[in-house]
């Protein structure tokens, strides 16, 4: 029996706002996979997650785990959260302040009227899993932020849910702890093999942890793919721009062959682009297209022009010193670019190489 989480046609419009919060989101999270909903603030990540949890009632759509249908608006079915058997961790951890750690974790089991031996044992297991078995007698306010977050996780998995939902669980931690927590959390997820939906607006987090990333913007799913694909083959301008340090330049397609495309800038400079980046798209000679440039892959050539492929001329418009590196705004014949370099560049003019894999053709 497969236990994929299947979201179809999910749409939510809040009565109090004019626009839809999410519209027609389709998503399949394979059993055991870690999927991240990634997107800027207000794009509808939490709303999607809450619809899955049953905390929001969607306007349309269906949600099921395997053949367990939790929401199906066409049939007027919306199970309340307590009947969905999910685990959830909230941004504020939401530990109940009047209950000790033990009681927080035991709450779900007590509601299920489990025998007290079993409760004790399972709570202990859960707390051991997050490494906090010694703190079961503390109150939440006696714990550090990181410990609270672990208790919240122990609480979410104690009743062995099929799906674990996490809404920015690491965003309240210090940057240092956050990086460790990432690794730890991903390890734990793999150990439990639990289907997980994770919400964040931090792309580093998304890339470090996920099997699949769902990029969202303005309530719409923009791309749903594994991390590498999101990075290498962004589906559209939004995804390209949101992921990594990206600039856009525009040119005209001069030549299309089976391996590559040649783009001509206004100055006549030529850029070769590997086509494998976009096997799915058709390009015609003469099309005016924008391409995305991954700044981190751009090489700055010091001292005169080079004969290398894809070398173009640029003029520095602006420079910012960031401590570990310099950030430059440069003007090229195709538009302005942002790039970073550990070297201080003297003078206002420079040559740079845009390796073929630093240029990404976009669908629009």
């Amino acid at each position, binding site marked *: 029996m497969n236990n*994929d989480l*299947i979201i*179809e046609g999910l749409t939510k419009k809040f009565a109090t706002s004019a626009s839809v919060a999410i519209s027609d989101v*389709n998503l*399949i999270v394979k059993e055991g996979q870690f999927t991240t909903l990634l997107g800027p603030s207000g794009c509808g990540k939490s709303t999607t997650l*809450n619809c899955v*949890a*049953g*905390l929001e*009632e969607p306007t349309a759509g*269906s949600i*099921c785990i395997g*053949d367990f*249908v939790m929401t*199906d608006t066409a*049939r*007027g*079915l919306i*199970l*309340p*959260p*307590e009947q*969905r*058997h*999910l*685990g*959830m961790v*909230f*941004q*504020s951890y*939401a530990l*109940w*302040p*009047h209950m000790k750690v033990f009681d927080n974790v035991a*709450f*779900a089991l007590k*509601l*299920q009227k489990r025998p007290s031996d079993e409760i004790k044992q399972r709570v202990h297991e859960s707390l051991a899993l997050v490494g906090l078995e010694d703190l079961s007698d503390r109150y939440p306010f006696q714990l550090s932020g990181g410990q609270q977050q672990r208790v919240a996780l122990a*609480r*979410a998995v104690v*009743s062995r849910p099929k799906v674990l*939902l996490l809404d920015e669980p690491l965003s309240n931690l210090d940057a240092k702890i956050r990086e460790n927590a990432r690794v730890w959390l991903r390890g734990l997820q793999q150990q439990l093999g639990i289907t997980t939906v994770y919400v964040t607006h931090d792309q580093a987090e998304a890339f470090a942890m996920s099997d699949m990333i769902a990029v969202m913007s303005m309530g719409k799913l923009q791309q749903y793919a594994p991390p590498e694909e999101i990075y290498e083959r962004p589906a559209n301008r939004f995804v390209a721009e949101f992921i990594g340090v990206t600039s856009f330049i525009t040119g005209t397609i001069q030549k299309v062959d089976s391996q590559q495309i040649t783009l001509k800038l206004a100055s006549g400079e030529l850029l070769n682009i590997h086509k494998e980046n976009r096997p799915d798209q058709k390009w015609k000679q003469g099309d005016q297209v924008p391409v995305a440039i991954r700044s981190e892959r751009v090489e700055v050539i010091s001292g005169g022009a080079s004969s290398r492929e894809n070398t173009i001329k640029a003029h520095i418009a602006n420079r910012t010193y960031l401590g570990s590196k310099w950030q430059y705004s440069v003007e090229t014949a195709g538009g302005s670019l942002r790039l970073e370099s550990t070297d201080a560049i003297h003078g206002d003019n420079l040559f740079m190489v845009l390796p073929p894999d630093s240029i990404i053709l976009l669908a629009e």
Partner: protein
Amino acid sequence: MTSAVQETPRPLAPKIFRWDTALQWAVVIITFVLVIFPAWPIVYQSFMDKPLYEKDTAFTFGNYTHILSDPHFWHVLIYTLAFAVMSTIIAGFIGIALAIFINRTNMPLREFFSNLVTIPYYVSPLVLAFAWIEMYGPQGFGTIVIRALRIPTWQLYSFWGIVVVAAMYYVPYTFLYASSSLALADAQLESAARIGGASPFRTILTITVPLLRPAIIYSALLTLVSALELLSIPLLLGNSVGIETLSTYLYTIGMVGVNKDQGAVAAVALLVVILVTGMVYLQGKLTSMERRFVTVGGKATRPKLLDLGGWKGVVAFFIGLYVLLGIILPLACVVLDSFVSFLSPFMNPLKILTLNNYRGIFDTPAYREAVVNSINISIFAAAIGILFMAIAALTAYRSSFKGREAVKYMALYPRAFPGIIVSIGFLWAFVLLPGIGSLRNTIIAISIAFIMRYLPLGFSAISPAVLQVSDELDRAGRVAGATWMQTIRHILLPILRPAILSGYILLAISFLKEYSTALFLVSKGSNVIGTTMLELWKQGGAEPVAALSTIQMAITAALIIASRKLLGVKLHE
């Protein structure tokens, strides 16, 4: 995307009965019934030409044309407005001055004064009016002393007498709102003015007072609304000299001419409700507008106190004088009077000490019952009331129930109903509805009326606390498998315990001193302290009234002290 779900049609989940929804419906229906119950007979009666319980009543506008063309009604209306506005202004000025001096300056004895000036908040206005009569009335203790010194005295039974006593009663409203607003405001603004060279008083006038504007407007309108419906002070001080306000007018015709003028009573009552509704609406509008200007720092920095320099003794002296003359001496007079056979400055009270007044109360079954009833109502009805109000607040703010917005409005709407009108409405409703007439003269009826009247108080005492609890806490409960009701029981109610307890004490004190809502509902065996005091007052015995007042104050004080000591309850910030 492949449609894995629709390929295999599954049976519809059975529509299950949910206790959650049942409880939420119950809350909405009870709230609705509570509010409508006393309201409909008044509306209905105001358009009927004869008392409702008579046969052949017919629709008419006659009651309104009759009232609106009656010059006496207009006279009373204008008088009421003048009285309410004047006492609001005076109470506002005193309250703000007290709040600023006590909270923001280095005058001595600040904590002490801060407790004393709020005393009238916990005392029934009936008791306060009576206390002032005992002290400053024509035969009052203080008046006689002054007269004996051949200094010209005053006339307490007058427009200004009523205004001053009502103002005394309302000072704590402004004081409390202004104080909590001052606690939130950023004291650095004042320091900045001082550093800029402003004198302390100048700083207060140009920085502190403007910052208080929202609190001032809010408490002024609150005072105005309750002054409009205030019964006891105008009744005790104005009745004998023919001064009438809307509520004493309703009281008099309501008490005397139940049969004759019922339509007119209803019409006046409805006009009052409309007037108060307007004020309440205005209050909501102004405060929501004002909220945009509030600059709450949210920093718990200890505010630096303004140094009054040589003035601090003077300020403390005048505040002390105010507390002594306005609050302590009158109330002390009442207590003293309850322990003597006759209070007079020319008799040594120690020689005429007696417990007869109390014996009189406890030996007369009707009076004893009144005390017991009041205690029962303030313990049990307040407990049921606050629990209901808490669940109503949770339904309004913490459920996905469709009618939750309606709960908010309905729970706050009784603010527009003066106690005396609630009383009339309940009376008529009990008379008219078949089957429940037997409840009419029981303390159950009075309890229900009290709960209705104080629905807004309890609801708004608990709502801010509800809003402060992150909703992720209850969401986490739901996901963990708790129904809405289980979430309420195991998570929200325990977390809200402090707010519910202080709401309970507030409600219990209010029920203890409430009388106007009970006026038309009491009868033999179901009297409460307040209504009994009024009755005794009409019979002319000051000492029994003093004894009852003292009992009421003692119970209130015990409640406050016990709740503070045992439960750690703070009634206001």
